[in-house]
């Protein structure tokens, strides 16, 4: 760290400390407090010239998280104030992270997380149409392999596991609006042997309107007709938590080969229900279960605010940076993805338990491996599958790479962004 930076940091910390002692003294006089607060804060802010020292958001947010877990009201006020001055959802990464984490921290400190989350969700639902949501997904897939990685890997595993089967039933628990399936349908249609019959059952979590699924279903049916694949489309909805689902809900038939496709699905299951959910999947007697999850851990640190916020910050810094480098600066789609992330951040940091609606408690690949082992054993991706993924990555900008899971109990494939594992894809068969 260069000297100017160190000096700035010292300056900033000294001022902060001076301000704290001021606050102790002036507790009796609220007006004086405010004035001092303002003057000192603006001096402090100047010493953080964001154009000079990058990554100021990380430092400030960490200090703020510490203050919140220590319940130090004066410090909390101070840091929230500073974040409020510097943050903007329309600026650079630091400004964005500051803005969205500020919201989460504020809700945490004022215990208004659930209320805020509910409002945000209802606003998002009201303002998103099928068209707009689909546009975001497609644009994201165009500029980044973040979601397509999992699709390609899973399709490869599914095709391998279902080779030779005449009747396929894919149970799809994901939120990418069936953008995964056209390629699979094409592959099925161009197989050397007879084209199998495909049933696709899509599990719809709360928030996706009925009209959306109808639209998707019609499109899929049309496409399958064009491909010449006998096709059936079903929707499972009407439940409030994924953990409520039972094997009967899927209508699995005896003569079918079942594949369960979980893309970002397991993290949506309440933490306490995860084991039983996996057992339920086992009872479906699937030929293969594909699991794709983002590489972050918001579960093991459920009760440790500092650890959880640091992990949140680590993950979303990478994600936001990736978004910034993948999209044009004025992209509406990127803005939607950032706002979606902000709801996740709020849910993880400011909502108690899972009362805040959809769970977003991610776990890392190694943690999912532990959960799945026992009921399931890992299937490795065949060479063709891996080649497909490699080919996929080549069509995006530099920075993306493939990393097989290492270690004895580890399995699956990681997508890495600038050498950081970000998405984990795996395939499992019942043991």
């Amino acid at each position, binding site marked *: 760290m260069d000297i100017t930076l160190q000096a700035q940091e010292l300056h900033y910390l000294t001022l902060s400390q001076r301000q704290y002692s001021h606050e102790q003294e002036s507790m009796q006089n609220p007006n004086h*407090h405010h004035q001092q607060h303002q003057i000192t804060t603006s001096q402090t802010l*100047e010493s953080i010239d964001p154009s000079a020292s990058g990554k100021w958001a990380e430092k400030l947010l960490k200090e703020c998280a510490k203050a919140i877990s220590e319940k130090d009201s004066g410090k909390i006020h101070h840091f929230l104030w500073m974040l409020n001055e510097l943050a903007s959802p329309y600026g650079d990464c630091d400004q964005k992270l500051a803005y969205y984490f500020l919201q989460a921290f504020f809700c945490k400190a004022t215990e208004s997380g659930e209320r805020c989350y509910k409002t945000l969700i209802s606003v998002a639902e009201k303002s998103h149409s099928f068209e707009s949501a689909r546009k975001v997904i497609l644009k994201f897939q165009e500029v980044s392999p973040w979601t397509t990685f999992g699709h390609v890997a899973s399709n490869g595993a599914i095709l391998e596991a279902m080779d030779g089967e005449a009747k396929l039933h894919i149970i799809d628990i994901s939120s990418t609006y069936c953008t995964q399936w056209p390629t699979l349908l094409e592959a099925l249609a161009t197989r050397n042997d007879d084209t199998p019959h495909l049933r696709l059952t899509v599990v719809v979590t709360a928030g996706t309107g009925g009209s959306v699924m109808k639209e998707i279903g019609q*499109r899929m049916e*049309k496409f399958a007709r064009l491909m010449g694949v006998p096709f059936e489309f079903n929707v499972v909805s009407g439940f409030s938590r994924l953990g409520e689902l039972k094997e009967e809900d899927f209508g699995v038939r005896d003569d079918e080969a079942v594949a369960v496709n979980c893309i970002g699905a397991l993290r949506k299951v309440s933490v306490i229900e995860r084991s039983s959910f996996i057992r339920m999947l086992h009872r479906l007697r699937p030929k293969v279960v594909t699991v794709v999850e983002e590489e972050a851990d918001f579960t093991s640190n459920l009760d440790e605010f500092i650890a959880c916020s640091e992990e949140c910050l680590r993950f979303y810094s990478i994600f936001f940076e990736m978004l910034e480098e993948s999209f044009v600066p004025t992209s509406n789609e990127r803005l939607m993805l950032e706002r979606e992330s902000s709801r996740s951040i709020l849910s993880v940091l400011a909502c108690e338990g899972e009362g805040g609606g959809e769970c977003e408690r991610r776990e890392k690949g190694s943690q999912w491996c532990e959960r799945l082992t026992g009921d399931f054993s890992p299937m490795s991706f065949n060479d063709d599958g891996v080649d497909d993924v490699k080919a996929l990555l080549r069509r995006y900008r530099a920075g993306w790479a493939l990393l097989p899971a290492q270690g004895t109990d580890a399995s699956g494939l990681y997508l890495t962004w600038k050498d950081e594992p970000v998405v984990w894809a795996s395939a499992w068969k019942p043991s």
Partner: protein
Amino acid sequence: MKRSFEMHGTLELIHPSEQWDCAPMSFKAARQYTGVDISDFMEHVARQLSENSENTADGFSMESLSNETFTPSNREYHPRKQARTYYNNSDIDGGNAEELQWINGTQSYDNMINMTKNKSGDHHHHHQNDQQGLSLITLLMECAVAISVDNLEEANKMLLELTQIASPYSASCAERVVAYFAKAMARRVMSSCLGGGTIMYSPLLQTKAILSAFQTFNTISPFIKFAHFTANQAILEAFHQRDRVHIIDLDIMQGLQWPALFHILATRPEGPPHVRMTAMGTSYEALEETGRQLSGFARRLGISFEFHPVGRKPGEVDPAMVQTRRGETIAVHWLQHSLYDAIGVNWKTMRLLEMIAPRVITLVEQEMPPHSGQFLERFVGALHYYSTIFDSLGATLGCEDVNRHKVEHWMLEREINNVLAVGGGEEEMFGGWRTELVRRGFAQVPMSGNSMTQAQLILNMFPAMHGYTIQQGDGTLRLGWKETGLYTASVWTSPRLMR
């Protein structure tokens, strides 16, 4: 240093990508609209509000506006640019057939489906966008009312909604404005919740980015040049046949204005005068740098030049720091902006002006209610003002234009935040600079025909079909967009001078 009187390059027109569409929201006060610029709407609202100004904040009701059918004046309706899919395949590797199939898999699926659908025309899209934008403005105003009566909870709820929906990259100017205003109001509400008032941003915060955005604004918009050139013209006239001149710039920033004046002074038939410049600003290092640049420039033109930096705001300056010499002709210049508080204490600045007794004061002001007014009044004035600027930018630059975004985010967002901030307003009603100057006995000098010519020449540098308008009245020159005046230039002289 870049010479500010150079012609700027032709503006590049960039086609916007497909419109961002969201389902229109329903609001209490529905408005009848055809697609018009939001500046028209704001004119209408501003008029309504000034008529209702006797009402206290409690009595202010949106319902009084809700049943109005606003008919736009007979002005040309500017169709938005053709929406065109801007994404192209060029950065995807040609690769082998297998790879292409993967991409085509999703895309052809998409295309096939879309071909069977009836895509709505661009005009309809545009109309829908404006509806959306104007609905957002309505909600924004309701939110401002909530803030003005300290109903922070209600305001917060509305802001949660606004900040989730409005996008600053939208094709709709109204929506862009709402995005930034909502963000500024959220900052203010958050500050209040944290138990304090909001203050204006410090001039030392993120300076480089701000100044760069200011320069970009100077390139894509005529307002700054208008300010510079009309002021320079008045100063030139005041310096007629004077050999010792002293220019005092109350907030010099990077001194973009002065090279043009130096050039003209250097080519005077009677030869250049000796030029002294006193420059005020908050960062001494920045002032020194500006001084270096200007000195170099003056030297190259053969002008004998002295530069005095004063690292203070004019309202904080000890008058002794500003040295005036006998026999020199003094010009004081001030271009108002809201990037930060450049002046400090208003009445002290006035007193400084009285003491200096300049031959000419060139003043360029933003047409907004003074900072010490009521929040709601300031809000409406600011909304009107900035909507107009956003409209003017949107008329020439596409919604994806990076320069436009830079100006909107770094400059205009900063100004909006400052204008909506509390503070600085401990002063008694300060009725605006022109009013104060009159009150203190300064005499207004009508803007000359030459200044008008200068203004016209500047506008000719920008594509003629766009709606910039110059208005003349009360001895001032005002540059605006369509019917809304934005920057007003006026010239004053000190009452103590006999000449």
